[in-house]
């Protein structure tokens, strides 16, 4: 048995093992892969132990134990968090939900599906698709991430503009509290006005209020048809203005993505989907719905784009062309990753009408800090992903990156936006939270946290630091 590295007493690990009658990871070699998530540039620390409960009862037993012993815990799914929400800060027990991966049942009459927290999100949509149904939220990590993680972060995705985000699909949750009690929040009905919206509160709570073990999700009928379009622009402001033009014409595409010149060049070099070399910006658009509506909507969109200074508008003629268009968007991050080793991907979101100003602000920030920044993202809902291309081994540049990131947040807030459209706060954006939501709101959040988790054992150090009477940060 290897030595555990942090102050997690050996006896404690033994007790957890006996409790669950399951393997507990505690050796340094086993813990290293749990010392990080997908957030770049964060310091890694080893957790105290990792457990893999396979039922709600087991999660409850672990939390009861943790409560008794005052052990901090971190709930974790696939660990693809982008704000450090699953990164250990000091000897926590990681409760890894990946062993709870059953799709319990899909109810066709009610258009709902019951799942355990560890199910990979793409599997839910695949199961729904078999029956002509649809689970819309599709974050970029959809093939890897777990639904529990998506719920804890209120994940978004490319279809957010038309279909909303994870919270819009959570009807009910099963969760375990800091004292090991199992609560059932929400229910199985589309409408539910029964007490506080506990399910809504837990959605996006980033593991700080309860450990989500299961969910009842709403499904929609799968759209019958879809059409994709690619429009090129001579400037990114033109593209941003065209976005505003579409919305003000009351057209709501399912997906409305923007890519800037930097991104276009990287994507073209990487997989040659045939993006025009002289475009300063492109919009990638998908409309979906019943076949007749889709065709006419695609035409409407084309007209609006042309009226908004689009240089070219290309409608995909068949499935292969459609795939090529979306390949260009899907590989954006990979293509950029090949240009420099470290990508700092931000998530600042503004009201859609402010997208042109945000885009200018981003360019100005990048220039002033002498950084290379590519911008792509969900232009339709104002959720841009300014991506700084850097190298984490270059300390001087990393410090300029931090300065630039601060200013990106300030710009977003100044334009009436938020710190994060979909990645969450975790640890990465903690310092900005008070500025973003204000002191009174933060106090309210602290009050809620204290009510749910008085001992502060659930994912400590995330979102905000609770200020308790015992002075514990």
């Amino acid at each position, binding site marked *: 048995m290897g030595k555990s590295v942090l102050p997690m007493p050996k006896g404690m690990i033994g007790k957890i093992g006996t409790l669950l009658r399951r393997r507990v990871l505690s050796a340094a070699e086993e813990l290293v892969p749990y010392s*990080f998530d997908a957030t770049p540039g964060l310091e890694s620390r080893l957790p105290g132990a990792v457990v893999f409960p396979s039922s709600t009862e087991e999660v409850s037993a672990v939390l009861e134990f943790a409560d008794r012993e005052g052990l901090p815990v971190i709930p974790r799914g696939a660990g693809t968090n982008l704000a450090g929400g699953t990164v250990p800060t000091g000897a926590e027990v990681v409760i890894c939900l990946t062993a709870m991966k059953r799709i319990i049942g899909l109810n066709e009459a009610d258009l709902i599906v019951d799942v355990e927290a560890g199910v990979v999100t793409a599997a839910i949509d695949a199961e729904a698709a078999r029956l002509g149904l649809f689970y819309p939220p599709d974050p970029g990590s959809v093939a890897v991430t777990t639904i529990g993680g998506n719920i804890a972060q209120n994940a978004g995705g490319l279809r957010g503009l038309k279909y909303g985000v994870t919270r819009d699909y959570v009807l009910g949750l099963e969760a375990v509290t800091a004292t090991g009690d199992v609560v059932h929040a929400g229910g199985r009905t589309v409408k539910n006005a029964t007490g506080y919206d506990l399910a809504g509160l837990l959605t996006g709570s980033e593991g700080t209020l309860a450990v989500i073990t299961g969910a009842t999700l709403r499904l929609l009928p799968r759209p019958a048809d879809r059409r994709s379009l690619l429009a090129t622009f001579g400037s990114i402001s033109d593209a941003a203005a065209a976005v505003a033009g579409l919305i003000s014409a009351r057209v709501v595409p399912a997906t409305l993505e923007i890519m800037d010149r930097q991104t276009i060049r990287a994507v073209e070099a990487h997989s040659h989907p045939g993006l025009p070399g002289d475009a300063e910006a492109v919009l990638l658009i998908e409309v979906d719905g019943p076949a007749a509506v889709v065709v006419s909507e695609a035409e409407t969109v084309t007209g609006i784009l042309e009226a908004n200074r689009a240089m070219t508008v290309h409608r995909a003629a068949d499935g292969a062309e459609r795939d090529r268009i979306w390949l260009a968007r899907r590989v954006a991050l990979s293509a950029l990753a090949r240009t420099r080793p470290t990508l700092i991907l931000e998530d600042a979101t503004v009201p859609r009408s402010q997208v042109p100003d945000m885009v200018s602000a981003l360019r100005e920030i990048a220039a002033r800090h002498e950084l290379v920044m590519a911008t792509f993202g969900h232009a339709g809902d104002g959720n841009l992903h300014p991506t700084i291309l850097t190298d984490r081994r270059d300390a001087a540049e990393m410090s300029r990156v931090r300065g630039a990131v601060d200013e990106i947040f300030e710009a977003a807030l100044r334009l009436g936006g938020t710190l994060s459209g979909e990645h969450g706060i975790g640890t990465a954006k903690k310092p900005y939270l008070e500025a973003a939501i204000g002191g009174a709101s933060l106090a309210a959040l602290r009050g809620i946290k204290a009510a749910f988790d008085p001992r502060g054992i659930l994912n400590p150090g995330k979102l905000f630091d609770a200020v308790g009477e015992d002075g514990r940060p």
Partner: protein
Amino acid sequence: MNNADSATPACRPREWDLAGLLGDDLVRCSRCGFCQAVCPVYRETGEESATARGKLSLVEALAQGKIPPSRRLYDLFYRCLVCRACADACPSGVPTDHIFLIARTVLATAPAGLGAKKIFLTAFERPRLVNLLVKVAGAAWPLFFRPSGFIRWPANQFGPLRGTRLPRLSGRPFLPRRDRAEDEKAGSEAGSKPGSATALFFAGCLINYAYAETGESAVRILERLGYRVIVPRDHRCCGTPLAVNGETERARKLAHQNLHDLASTPFDVLVTACPSCASTFRDLYPNLLAGTADADRAATVAAKTVHLVDVLGGEGARRLTVSPASSVLPGREEPFLVTYHDPCHLIHGGHPPARPREILNSLPWVRYVEMANAGSCCGGGGTFAYTHRELSASIASRKVDAILATGAAAVVTSCPGCVTQLREALARAGSSARVAHIADLMDGCGNTSAPSHPREPSDPAGTRRGYSEGSDGYGSGTPRLSGR
């Protein structure tokens, strides 16, 4: 074979040190976690140490001295099929498989208790010894193995070899070929029209010792396609088992010896029926020998290396005449339902998956059905199936489910390792679905010389289960329902 000249490469091997790794390759891992979605081991264990990003974090921690090169670390790195699905899927293009092999090289020096493994690995450097062992094993085979290929009781029921089913070691390896003189003549008549290309067929260990008939099939196919075929006089391992077990220097030596021998005979294309051998020549040798005197030779051979599927794909298969009656699959009039399993080292080695499917679709008496996740690993992984039996069996059982779900009577693949693994897994599951290497399938089509095995009587009702012993020249090639 093993000439004194070629025993010591006259070169300075490139230094592989972990600190050097913290260069551009390792830092590119953005920890996005996309490797989780494709890792066959993660799928079974759900533990991050299985994933590429998990192992890369361990490499980094090892290089920074944060963890020691312990036995536990060694085990974590060996809990990996080296299937390359992660390297293929990585959005940042991190060469994960190369980094893992380097890590295994460093770890090979550290932990104790690997004596048995080191002894086993020397076999790959001693073909003459192995030839002798194989002859002995071939003779003693029936004492330990049933005709079905399953190991005999009590080992079949108890202990780590439970459920083991191996290909028949016939005692007569592919090389040296006794009838080579005749083949050369036949080859030169059949294939050496002026301007016909020369193909060097490299058998590899598994075909050489366990599937000699597949080697023969491959040679015949190449000849019928108009190649003049040459084979090395004696067998030598390509070196991958050594490289994969961290014995980089010894692998380099084998690479050098192989390249030295290959340099002495001109050939246009190096063809193999084993994807691992193909990727060894194409990817591993240039990597192993970069910066040495052999680098150019390695690059030249790499450029000439193809797998049989590459030769058969496209026009190749169409040039072979098709005759279901002499096929390895029981002859029928109705379309024979067949599915295909993609070997990892083909599908993650840059070989288009469309090719084998084109080949199968070109056979009018075959109805091809795609299985779910055809590209996911069978769990064989060379010796992985024997060092990690339970994990390998778990992974294989997913394949079995996918195969059975298609209702196919046979699964075709292009790797002798996959053939071995799938035959064992299907037999264990009580299925009578046959497993055929694509070389044997295509050789049976229009083979004008006597087939290497007696033909199966036709089975129009498709209800035949199990076959009588020895009726198939593969020996163990026929699964039995009652194989336990």
